[in-house]
């Protein structure tokens, strides 16, 4: 038995036939082949699978694909403008906010959610916003620095491109 789902993913209409037990993260990774969203823990602790559903950061391993039917999804692949990078991507690069890179998409997605709610977070606020996202490489220090840097550049109004999906 399968269900039909229709979603907007990174600005594009996508459809699939899914088993009711299929997780949103499996739909994204396996059916839509957007493998930038990662599975790290299976139990909704690590946040490597974080995507935006209707503009909010959620863990896509904790949502069924059928629950996401009709929603608008942004993944890491949808964050950059046509040319260059999202300020968070740029800041993670500049500030050495990643090492193995496995947690990075989830970190960037959760940080984008934070900065949408709080344009000028303190270090404490940044660290608490990362409560549900684990990194084993960086000790979090340069992730915090990168998010602080991105907040600064985005506030400076430099170029804060809107993710593709929100334009759809």
């Amino acid at each position, binding site marked *: 038995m399968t269900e039909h789902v229709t979603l907007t993913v990174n600005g594009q209409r996508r459809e699939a036939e899914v*088993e009711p*037990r299929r997780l949103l993260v499996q739909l994204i*990774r396996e059916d839509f*082949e*957007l*493998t*930038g*969203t*990662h*599975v*790290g*823990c*299976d*139990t909704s*602790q*690590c946040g*490597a699978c974080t995507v935006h559903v209707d503009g909010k950061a959620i863990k896509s391993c904790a949502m069924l694909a059928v629950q996401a039917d009709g929603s608008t999804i942004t*993944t*890491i*692949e949808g*964050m*950059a403008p046509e040319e260059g*990078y999202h300020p968070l*991507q740029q800041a*993670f*690069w*500049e500030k*050495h906010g*990643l*090492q*193995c*890179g*496995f*947690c*990075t*998409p989830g970190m*960037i997605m959760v940080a984008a959610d934070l900065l949408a709610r709080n344009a000028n977070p303190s*270090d*404490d606020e*940044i*660290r*608490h916003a*990362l*409560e549900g*996202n*684990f*990194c*084993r*490489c*960086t*000790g*979090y*220090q*340069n*992730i*915090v620095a990168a998010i602080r840097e991105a907040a600064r550049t985005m506030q400076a109004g430099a170029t804060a491109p809107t993710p593709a999906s929100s334009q759809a």
Partner: protein
Amino acid sequence: MTTDILGSSVKRTEDPKFITGKGRYLDDIKLTGMVHMSILRSPYAHANIRSIDTTAAKAMPGVLAVIVGADIPYNPLPMAWPAGGASGLQNNVNTPRVLATDDVKWTGEGVAAVIAETPEQAVDALDVIAVDWEPLPTVVDSEKATQPGAPQLHENAPNNIVFDWTVGDKAGTDAAIDNAEVVVRQRIVNQRLIPNPMEVRGDIGWYNPGTEEYTVWMSSQTPHIQRLLLTAFVTGIPEHKVRVIAPDVGGAFGTKIFCYADMALVMFASKLVGGRPVKWVETRRENYQSTIHGRDHITYLEIAGKKDGEITGLRVKTYANLGGRLSTIGPGIPTTLYGRVLAGPYKFPNVHCEVIGVYTNTTFVDAYRGAGRPEATYVVERAMDLFADEIGMDHAAIRRKNFLPNDAFPYDNPSGLGTAVNGEKVYIDSGNYEPALDKALTIVDYYLLDEKRAEARKRGKYLGVGLSTYIEICGVAPSKWIGAVGEGWGAAMWESANLKVHLTGKIILTMGTQPQGQGHETTYAQIISSELGVPMEDIIVQHSDTQGTPFGYGSYGSRTSSVGSTAAIKAAGKVREKAKRYAAHMLEASVEDIEVDGANYRVKGSPDKVKTIQEIAFAIDLGFSLPDGMEPYLDETAYHDTPNTTWPFGTHIAIVEIDEETGHVDLVRYVAVDDVGNKINPMIVDGQLHGGIAQGVGQALWEGAIYSDDGQLQSGSMMDYAMPRAAWFPNLELDETVTPSPVNPIGVKGVGEAGAIASTAAVSNAVIDALSPLGIKHLDMPYTAQTVWRAIQGAKGGAAGAADHTNGSNGKGGQA
């Protein structure tokens, strides 16, 4: 020759793919016709297998095959690093089979596998495999496992002992302790940890029926070693018929060094299903049960010395838990990488260490970041504080008094670095310990901290300060030393590099090392850019595929920057020499008259007579006009066997505040002054230190793998294991001293593990220091609020904590 590129914080060339979601990790790979494997794992920690019925599973939808151990003609996995050394050697080896046949020794040992069209179908079919189990008694504690009457795991290992290994001067150390003015004794536990790379392990096996060749993709730190182990030891398939590829590796921390059963299983399975690629990716729960764990030592230490603080002897007996069967280099970690470095940065005249390697009904234990050296540092640095507290000496002063002097190097320490029968030795390469200590003390205003202690007490907090003045050993080598001391070849030795300058002047450096997030593609390119004067964007660095890279040992033990970089520099040197010879030919000059300045090769005294390396490469690669005896193509390979190990060092200081009411420990400040020699890329070095420190702090404050007495892993998922989170850390404050290593041409020492080696002891010492006003001399990690609260209550005489106040560890303490 160097230019500014070496030593500068160049942004990583790896990053664009990772920040855009275009990294390619094992689970991101989809191959045509690919099918999926899932492994049935033992629910018992110790049991015999009476029978396995796979009939129902074979009839499940989508199932192509069900495999049990008896189906597989392969050998058990190899063990490549027996406990070497001079005395007491035993190695009662038992390693896992690809799937268990007769019995299981830990919860999570694989007993059957299903191959199906989809991952879900494979998992569904596991549920209907019927195993008839005969449960057996279990033991999970390494000390208890050696006692009379303990359950026995293996016939060839009486009392569950894998080896009883010693190092150092026993008679001298015994005499030092017997004759000492002061002796302090303490039992300390270095608890078991789960390494937790964010990417779990996985493999894809593909048998090509046309060529009878295998390709195995695996998340690995050591593709060449795995090809060797899987062919020569496990499967019997000829080495040249197997290709191993490691895609992007999402962290490893030691766990991906080793040969695991699943690697052979996907090879067998692919052939069984007619050459369809077979993918297996472990769940996080499987990772916790069946990928290696780290640490797990129980240690009795005795430190002896004079009332003025001079240490005269250190005697250590350690029970090292190695799990139910041995991992690839399990015995090497608590012996060479632990016992041989127990003297730390100190001029201890006498050190003796006995390590008993033990089988228990737990997951196998092997190298986790630091691997032996964090355990040694923990013992030595706790011992220094215990001794200082006994004689009433300041914790910084006792370290300073016992440091090796600056003229001691190269230094042959007394815990057995030079035990080779043929005289081969490795030395501590260089050191200068006091400046790092002084710098760290200055940064924290060490001598003004009593005011802060008093201020904290007014707020209901105990403030504690912990020092860790560590050293560590990187790039274990040279090969002849490893061979001479009987370490087995699992220790790793030399490294390799191939450098090609193509017709268009673009450069490909191909390495035998294997990154897992360290930024090798950037740092090697910096080195080659510096060596050859070519811009970084004209250089790419390749690795991770046994087809096309020279044999190399991979990346672990902080060996890449010292050993791997030197191989790359040697290859560049060969390229430069050949280019010089050709420049002489082109410019009609003698080779001796060619000067090299970056990419320019010019005739001395004739600045207009110049050729660039790109022009030279074009001409050599075409080969239209080669001098007699010169082969075409600017393509050189170098193998480098380093003459010695390298020894980073430094001082870390942790400051904690403990809440008197709740026992909660807050890490309020962390200062690290590290000396890792010269730096190729300071930004990357800092990142390595941050991550290492966080892992070491994690052990001290939160992490621990917990088994029930019947061998169930109770910390079996990230819901139950305390993975450190961002909000739990202060901003880490880093500083440096720089003492170049004389071992390699760029003076680097290695940095992958230093943070993890130093930080556990620093935080532990800070917590005990904070609790010392209550009379607490030692407490075992991790310092969760419950553990600390109980200790506080016990010290105050409250009933709640009385039973646990010493955490079972202090009973044999005291002093002679």
